[in-house]
């Protein structure tokens, strides 16, 4: 699936954003003669077990990067620098007002052997409707199969992020027993068989141990620039929850890439097996306040907490400077939508660290809410060394002032997600949640599911049940306005509103960092980190996006 598919919670995977980089020079990936390539095997690690194998209902980065991105594809996909969309299963498309017509690639076969047609696309869109990922297809009011290779989508209003959203819709065959338009009750064993069109076929899933893919021999790519099938005979993702074990396995040459390298420990790879490759990304880390619960209902309290956070110090100490501070959800990876100068102004005005002012605001808020200090709170996050570290700094900072008593509660990602998705969970607690969000290639993906009133859990990811009609209108306006130059002021307004209202406090966007074993690939410096951690393995073989990594030759 394309990078748009990556909209979702970033759990065990690490960095989710940033600018600049010191690694791969991406795009220039053909030093090897594609007609004479020696194939190989690639072994990487995942810090968690993929929780979902049905691509339609994947909501987390681990499952998407280990399943969705290998075996399933969408109509379109963005380039690695997010500058434009390329056809994946579509060859071209036109937009006429609220009608979007896609011409499908002919001769594409599913792993089942059946040819993909427009009926499969219609089926796949219907299948996603009503799921947790409904937002990706909710804008489509009608689907019309014109012929086998042409499909027409209609929306009620013009919809700007249509390509981003469609890049998140995996295309599945409509004729497989056990796969219906009701994925929650489907009996198909997605853990045993892949049915997508992607370049890799699921070979083995040994839960808690490994996922093995083999190259799909009938992959549709027929260009001359790269090999027509993946140059990797086999890709194995080893599930290794213990970070130290991952690092030792990498040091021992048993892994080609490790999952979730901690940015504060990258120096350990100096002169070692692992090569650090980093580049800009989309996404951000943030904390959410339960805005329905007193004293979080009071803006002074939220602002006071936010102004206690030492952003600059954390960026330096935890991220080694490989992150950019944010005031709102729009991150630098979104290019045209991010203005660095404007962002700094917002940070200074609304969220910059001011300990004394923060303490006063918190005390005033508690008094206004009739709460006797110290106010007891928990800061909840998931098992992730980087995230745990910055949450620990924030917890200590909160706990240091007399008005607050803060504790840190670290949970398994799979344990935290149900708590967030439960309308009686995070929304009703008095706890602050710190987590990451992978926002995709369109600004709407950074905002809508977290902040729109119609995206309350369990239908979306707005788990603090935030409602703001002004933000709702702006989200709507952003979706229906065409052209980045026209949309940019709208997202500027949202960025300022979020910084002012603080239903959540955006922290920073960190670089996408991969540590690659130089002996596992032909040229580690040619390894291009994907801006979205959900698509990190797309770099192995995405010929239509001009990105292929070859085995050692």
């Amino acid at each position: 699936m394309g990078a748009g598919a990556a909209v979702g919670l970033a759990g065990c995977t690490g960095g989710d954003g940033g600018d600049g980089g010191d690694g791969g020079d991406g795009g220039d990936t053909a030093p090897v003669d594609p007609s004479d390539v020696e194939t190989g095997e690639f072994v990487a690690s995942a810090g968690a077990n993929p929780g979902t194998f049905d691509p339609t209902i994947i909501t987390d980065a681990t499952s998407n990067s280990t399943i969705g991105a290998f075996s399933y594809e969408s109509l379109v996909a963005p380039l690695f620098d997010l500058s434009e969309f390329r056809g994946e299963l579509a060859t071209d498309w036109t937009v006429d007002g609220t009608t979007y017509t896609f011409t499908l690639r002919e001769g594409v076969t599913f792993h089942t052997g059946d040819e993909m047609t427009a009926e499969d696309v219609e089926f796949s869109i219907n299948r996603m409707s009503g799921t947790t990922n409904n937002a990706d297809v909710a804008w489509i009011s009608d689907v019309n199969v014109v012929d086998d290779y042409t499909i027409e989508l209609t929306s009620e209003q013009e919809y700007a992020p249509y390509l981003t959203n469609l890049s998140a819709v995996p295309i599945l065959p409509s004729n497989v027993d056990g796969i219906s338009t009701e994925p929650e009750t489907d009996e198909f064993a997605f853990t045993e068989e892949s049915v997508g069109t992607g370049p890799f076929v699921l070979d083995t899933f040994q839960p808690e141990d490994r996922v093995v893919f083999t190259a799909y021999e009938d992959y549709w790519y027929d260009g001359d620039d790269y090999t027509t099938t993946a140059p990797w005979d086999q890709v194995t993702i080893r599930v290794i929850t213990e970070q130290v074990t991952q690092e030792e396995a990498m040091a021992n040459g048993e892994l080609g890439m490790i999952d979730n390298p901690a940015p504060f420990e990258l120096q350990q790879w100096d002169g070692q097996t692992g090569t650090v490759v980093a580049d800009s990304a989309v996404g951000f880390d943030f904390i959410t306040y339960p805005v329905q619960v007193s004293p979080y209902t009071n803006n002074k309290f939220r602002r006071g907490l936010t102004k206690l956070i030492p952003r600059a110090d954390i960026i330096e100490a935890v991220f080694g400077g490989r992150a950019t501070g944010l005031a709102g959800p729009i991150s630098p990876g979104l290019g045209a939508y991010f203005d660095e100068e404007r962002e700094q102004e917002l940070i200074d005005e609304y969220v910059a660290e001011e300990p004394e002012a923060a303490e006063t605001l918190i005390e005033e808020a508690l008094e206004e809410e009739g709460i006797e200090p110290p106010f007891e709170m928990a800061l909840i996050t998931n098992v992730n060394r980087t995230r745990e570290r910055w949450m620990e700094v924030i917890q200590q900072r909160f706990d240091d002032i007399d008005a607050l008593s803060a504790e840190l509660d670290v949970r398994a990602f799979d344990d935290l997600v149900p708590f967030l998705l439960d309308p009686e969970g995070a929304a009703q607690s008095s706890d602050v949640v710190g987590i990451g969000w992978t926002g995709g290639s369109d600004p709407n993906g950074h905002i809508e599911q977290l902040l729109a009133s119609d995206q309350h859990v369990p239908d979306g990811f707005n788990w603090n049940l935030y409602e703001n009609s002004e933000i709702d209108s702006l989200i709507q306006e952003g979706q229906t306005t065409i052209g980045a130059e026209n949309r940019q002021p709208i997202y500027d307004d949202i960025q300022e509103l979020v910084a002012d209202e603080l239903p959540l406090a955006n922290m920073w966007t960190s670089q996408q960092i991969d540590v690659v074993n130089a002996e596992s690939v032909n040229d580690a410096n040619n390894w291009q980190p994907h801006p979205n951690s959900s698509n990190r393995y797309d770099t192995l073989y995405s010929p239509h996006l001009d990105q292929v990594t070859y085995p050692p030759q």
Partner: protein
Amino acid sequence: MSLQRFILKRALITIPLLLGISLITFGMVHIIPGDPIDFITLFADLDPGTEAEIRAQYGLDQPVYIQYIDWVVDAAQFDFGQSIVTRRPVSAEIMDRLPFTLVMGSMAFAVTLITAIPSGIAAAYYRNTTIDQVSRVFALVGIALPNFWLGLLLILVFGSVLNVFPVLPPTDQGLLSPAMLSYTILPALAIGTGATALLMRLMRSSMVEELDKDYVRTARAKGLPERTVITKHVLRNSLISVVTVAAIQIAFIVSGSVVVEIVFSYPGIGRLLVNRVGNRDFPVIQALVLIIGVSVILANLVADVLYAYLDPRIRY
């Protein structure tokens, strides 16, 4: 009381224990807050028909006592239903992993017995000498070291630095293949070290106590060779308490495997349990807790029987 009657009596006593474990295991799903169906569907907004279908599929539409009876009857036939995560039969999921844990546990147990008993004997026989002091230090360190930390240390030293063992378990290798058995040595050591240390100290104190008894003095006075005194008389009497504790150590080895399997990425039931707790895969968690509970009860039963066999006095 004959040994057979003793075994029967002890076996009967385990029945209420087994029932208690089954009740607790079954009850845990119903004690935690929330509706199990929410965890199965990740809080998806279901229409009533779909919800009813899923409830029926997992038997959640029945009264709790019926669910319990059904579950116990099925569990007795090793049928624990379907995994929420993989949708595979739970028994198949467990049978894929149980052999690995059994092999690792057996190796750990073998390491424990092979090292603890001779070193305990040596420490007792040469008490208050350097051998005794060294074994005491080893025992203290072995007991004090958390097994997960020891596991990481073993990986670092033998995997990364000395490059003697691989860090990750081999794939596509049979359970009893040389590669897999070789890989299992480090996790077995990590689990077995604590038990070894404990058993060694117990062996030593038990031997010291026996060595001071009159019958040993008599045996030596009769001119029996020292080797015969130790192996035929002292060792047999000393082993009574050691064998009992050794059987109970099986429980510690099982619980230790939960942590050590995570550190070593070892594909056993301990790792399965930890991961499925994270995924709230209740059918798998219930089955594993039941199996672990039953194995601990059986280990205790074996200990009692062995004790009764070695020391007939306790049958009465």
